């Protein structure tokens, strides 16, 4: 089914502080914008896939959003793989379309941890709270430390990832944080949990983003102006908590990418631009390794010298990613992948024909991969 399904439209809300906006209201706005982008009437939609809002669980939230959209779906609901959810839902929508279970799907995500509660990101890890073991950043810091000591990765290597994201975000008018930084700025940013400082960590953001998915054939019938073909997708997961994980420095990204790259018929060297989930700097570095852009342990030397910046060997997170555009978990990366394939990014990579997008959730528990191409 390589290329049989397309992303027909993309939409989002403003990013940052959106006081008074519920996730449901933001979902509706993002879907409205995505349908307008696809030039598709709401009446065509017969599938609604919704990422649960991390900050506040609502039972049967898929029905809540579908009701607010006034859509009676043939298929849909809420999916929970943390930050891997959005590409996974896109994959399930594509498979449902390919098998006649639905015709036009919207995939949408919204949350308001910035003006609402960020409790979900600072929670205790069960009884281990007694040791002071709290929060998402520390879980990733534990992995980063192991990677640094095992392979010689430095904090400056991680800084390359933040510097690239912040440069790209500064040029993106929709980005929440529009200030470029240097490696020196990065080294001086406030320590949070060693080895991480503030600029290793993603933003906390309110906002929503959505896509419209349909078959290539249906997009032609409906006159969709700029469909972007889905060439491949894959997923991978580890179930072990960080403390129990046999290997901290290899992730399910490898399995996920193998599946997606095989489906798409592409190799890492065919990829012109990548949108890699950057909840923390280390995530990008390890995803580059696990995807095969370099060998395991060589992520540090690979990113050194501006490789990930526009004009470098592999531009990454050209809209600013979670570190600079918005901390929303993942859908903004899919949107930017679509823009790169359409040629409409604020940081357009000249002649880009293949884009890979990664989503990742938990403490590197869940992973999903998307390969986008051109008509």
């Amino acid at each position: 089914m390589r290329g049989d399904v397309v992303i027909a439209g993309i939409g989002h809300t403003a990013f940052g502080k959106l006081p008074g906006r519920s996730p449901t209201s933001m979902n509706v706005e993002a879907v409205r914008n995505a349908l307008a982008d696809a030039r598709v009437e709401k009446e065509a939609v017969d599938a609604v896939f919704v990422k649960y809002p991390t900050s506040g669980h609502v039972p049967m939230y898929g029905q809540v959003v579908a009701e607010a959209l006034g859509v009676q779906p043939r298929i849909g609901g809420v999916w929970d793989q943390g930050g891997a959810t959005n590409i996974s839902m896109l994959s399930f929508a594509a498979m449902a379309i390919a098998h006649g279970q639905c015709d036009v799907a919207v995939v949408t995500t919204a949350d308001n941890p910035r003006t609402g509660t960020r409790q979900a990101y600072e929670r205790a890890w069960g009884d281990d709270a007694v040791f002071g073991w709290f929060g998402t950043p520390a879980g990733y810091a534990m992995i980063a430390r192991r990677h640094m000591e095992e392979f010689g990765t430095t904090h400056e290597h991680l800084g390359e990832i933040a510097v690239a994201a912040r440069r790209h975000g500064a040029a993106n008018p929709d980005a929440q944080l529009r200030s470029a930084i240097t490696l020196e700025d990065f080294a001086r940013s406030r320590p949070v949990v060693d080895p991480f400082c503030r600029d290793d960590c993603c933003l906390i953001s309110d906002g929503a983003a959505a896509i419209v998915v349909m078959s290539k054939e249906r997009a032609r019938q409906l006159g969709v102006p700029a469909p972007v073909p889905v060439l491949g997708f894959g997923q991978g997961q580890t179930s072990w908590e960080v403390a129990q994980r046999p290997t901290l420095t290899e992730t399910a990204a490898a399995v996920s990418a193998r599946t997606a790259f095989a489906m798409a018929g592409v190799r890492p060297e065919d990829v012109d631009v990548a949108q890699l989930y950057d909840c923390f700097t280390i995530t990008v570095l390890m995803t580059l390794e696990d995807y095969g852009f370099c060998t395991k342990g060589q992520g540090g030397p690979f990113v050194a010298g501006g490789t990930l910046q526009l004009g470098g060997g592999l531009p990454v997170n050209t809209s600013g990613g979670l570190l600079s555009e918005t901390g929303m978990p993942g859908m903004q990366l899919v949107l930017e992948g679509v823009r790169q394939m359409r040629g409409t990014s604020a940081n357009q990579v000249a002649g880009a024909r293949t884009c890979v997008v990664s989503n990742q959730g938990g403490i590197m528990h869940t992973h999903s991969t998307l390969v986008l191409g051109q008509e």
Partner: protein
Amino acid sequence: MLPRPEVTPLTEPYWSGLAAGELRFQRCHACGNAWLPARDQCPRCLSGSRTWEVASGGGRIISWVVYRQAVHEAFAERVPYNVAIVELDEGPRLITNVDAPEEDLAIELPVRLRIDEDDGVFLPRFTLAGRR
């Protein structure tokens, strides 16, 4: 006050063991697998037949972090403090603290169990092996 562990019938032998000066872990009667934290079934063979064993107290550091800011008020006076993953010689891994200056910490360093009473809770902590 430190956050209290939630003692359940499943975890009670673990916490009462610490109060008695022992770090206990679970071992499967069917396949010999050993693990922490407590579970009803062996995650390798799914057998529910298991027992508690006492750890020898040796282990090594898998990784570690240092909190520069407190997430919970109980740790506001304790920053900076470390949290480490330690693998026991018998195989199970646990979250813990290592009582050592941060410049001395490194992955794979051997450590030795020291059960501390802290704020009324008995906790399995570690020191660098061969030092006090």
